[in-house]
């Protein structure tokens, strides 16, 4: 996984490129993994010649004949197949067309893949890529965030990259792990998020990143909500508030130490997630800080999630269903007043 191997993107050297998107980073990581490890193969609906619903595997079937395979619409069997291949020494990467459809594979993920190493001592190295989260107009069944569900189960690693560099490096690291990894890539970031080139800077899985330092309040978030939180922090900076923003990067494991250290500096905590409000990552963050860092808090910790309804289709509704820079900003303002 050396930086020198970053190589070509869409047949061009990074230097020739204006920029690389989050989606292209995911494609490049798969390209590199296929090139370097003969045990890696890709399995998913429409991912071969067609290149996937989002083009995350564009050209890979051509470049790696026989290793990028179209699957039938059988999420359960897709994951069962991946488990069988993984325990026999392969490193499958399964693309769910949308994270929402992984509900059909839920049994194979949580009961088969997640328990395998514990029960038998034989590792089950596989990656499930989940195109996650809301985009305008996608509705209740093409917008979900599943990280909290999967994080609930022992035996899984659950990643939620928010940057182009993390999408690339964390996917590459995920492929080398000897455990099942749920890789939640955010669809909103696919095309919107660009970097000038693939960053060489990387952090290992399991470490949160302080994206912006501050001393008045800590916002802990991940995935697409990171960018909303950063925008809110920018707004608040105009009024002289310095907001620290922590990107979890991985929700399981959860880097409690980094959050605690941040709250020790700021005394105030807001946890923001795009998923449903009952339980989940933000509840976990708040409960840990309440338990281990109660003495550090100057105000009750807060959580912000989407509304407790299915995800609406129409942009007018969707825009207020999930947290945004504006609602995060207002929540921080309330927090600062307490």
């Amino acid at each position: 996984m050396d930086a020198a191997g970053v190589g070509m993107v869409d047949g061009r050297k990074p230097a020739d490129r204006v920029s690389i998107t989050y989606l292209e980073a995911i494609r490049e990581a798969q390209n590199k993994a296929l090139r370097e490890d003969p045990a890696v193969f890709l399995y998913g609906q429409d991912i071969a010649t067609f290149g996937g619903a989002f083009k995350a595997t564009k050209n890979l079937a051509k470049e790696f004949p026989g290793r990028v395979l179209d699957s039938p619409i059988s999420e359960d069997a897709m994951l069962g197949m991946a488990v069988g291949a993984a325990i026999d020494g392969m490193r499958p990467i399964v693309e769910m067309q949308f994270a929402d459809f992984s509900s059909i594979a839920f049994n194979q993920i949580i009961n088969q893949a997640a328990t395998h190493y514990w029960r038998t001592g034989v590792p089950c190295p596989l990656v499930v890529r989940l195109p996650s989260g809301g985009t305008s107009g996608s509705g209740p069944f093409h917008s979900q965030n599943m990280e909290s569900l999967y994080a609930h189960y022992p035996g899984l690693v659950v990643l939620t990259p928010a940057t182009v560099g993390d999408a690339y490096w964390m996917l590459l690291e995920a492929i080398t792990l000897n455990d099942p990894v749920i890789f939640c890539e955010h669809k909103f970031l696919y095309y919107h998020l660009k970097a000038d080139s693939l960053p060489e800077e990387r952090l290992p899985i399991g470490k949160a990143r302080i994206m912006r330092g501050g001393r008045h309040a800590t916002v802990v978030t991940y995935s697409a909500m990171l960018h909303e939180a950063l925008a809110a922090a920018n707004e608040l900076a105009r009024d002289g508030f310095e907001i620290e923003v922590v990107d979890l990067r991985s929700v399981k494991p959860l880097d409690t130490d980094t959050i605690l250290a941040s709250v020790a500096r700021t005394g105030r905590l807001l946890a923001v997630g795009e998923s449903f409000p009952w339980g989940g990552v933000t509840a976990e963050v708040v409960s840990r800080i309440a338990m281990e860092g109660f003495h550090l808090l100057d105000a009750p910790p807060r959580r912000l999630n989407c509304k407790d309804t299915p995800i609406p289709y129409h942009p007018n509704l969707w825009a207020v269903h999930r947290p945004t820079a504006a609602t995060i900003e207002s929540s921080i303002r309330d927090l600062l007043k307490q």
Partner: protein
Amino acid sequence: MIQSASIEGLLPTGVTAERFAEGFRWMLLSRTVEDKIAALYHAGKIVGGVYLGRGQEAFSAALGMALQQGRDVFAPLIRDQAGRMAFGDTVLSTLRTYLGSVLGPMRGRDGNIHRGEPRKGMPAMISHLGAMVSVVCGVLMSRRFKGETGVVGAASIGEGGTSTGAWHEAMNMAAVERLPLVVAVANNQFAYSTPSTRQFACDDLVERARGYGAQGISIDGTDLAQCIATFDAAVSRARAGGGPQMVVGRLLRLCGHGAHDDASYVPVELRELAENRDCLKAARATMLTNGWASPHELELMEAEAYEQVQQAVAQAQREPRPDPARETWMPLASEWLMEGNLQTA
């Protein structure tokens, strides 16, 4: 004891005396192990459930015998004690698992039929019915990627399990990939207490094979010779590139769903039908009528099986049980990613 396979030593199915006797031995050993486990259960010596394959030994043993451990893959299910042992599982590993010995393959982390040794080609079933078939498909895909040829994968299921989505998905996938998969469907007429009429509406489950794109064969699952001949042929066809094979065996579960269940929902008339005979008794009679074993030799075999089981019980009972203080509580192979181990400084 058995003369070499002369013409007289062949059954109408083409199965030799030796092969039939081998099948009979696995059936006998399986019945002996399971009778012992049931007795231990009723004596309160086993934690958790006990699920028996009484009446299904011929069908199961024949599948296990048709496969080669070290080369093939076999995902057994609830009622496969005979097939497991024919494939290479031992009486000792069975008892270690039922008695919770840490020296058993599941080390007290899982029990009873939920055991396996994936590195020896035997995945450990999860409870969720239908879920193991696609896992076998995955091992077969893996072998294909590695360029290994001539590997066969087998999976067992009951007629109830064929109503799951997981089963349909896996059968379709196997056919799309034209995998060398052999599925053994034991139609024992009841899924727990539910009769087949509440489970499926076609005349014979084998009709589905065509819809999947698999080759289907329906047999009397109580006839050892027919089971051996059928599975041998199905495994050969799969090995030769013939794609998925679906073998449906008709039989009756001659016990409850588990040792806790008296199967009172199975009508007496049904139990008395000739077609629902005990396959072990039938195989024993075949051994005798063909002169492949004398009554005395059969008694010796039975005593030998009993002795083998007694020894395994004694050994497994002496072995240590899991110690919570020495348990690693480690569900990840990447140990550094357990939260207690994170290096976040």
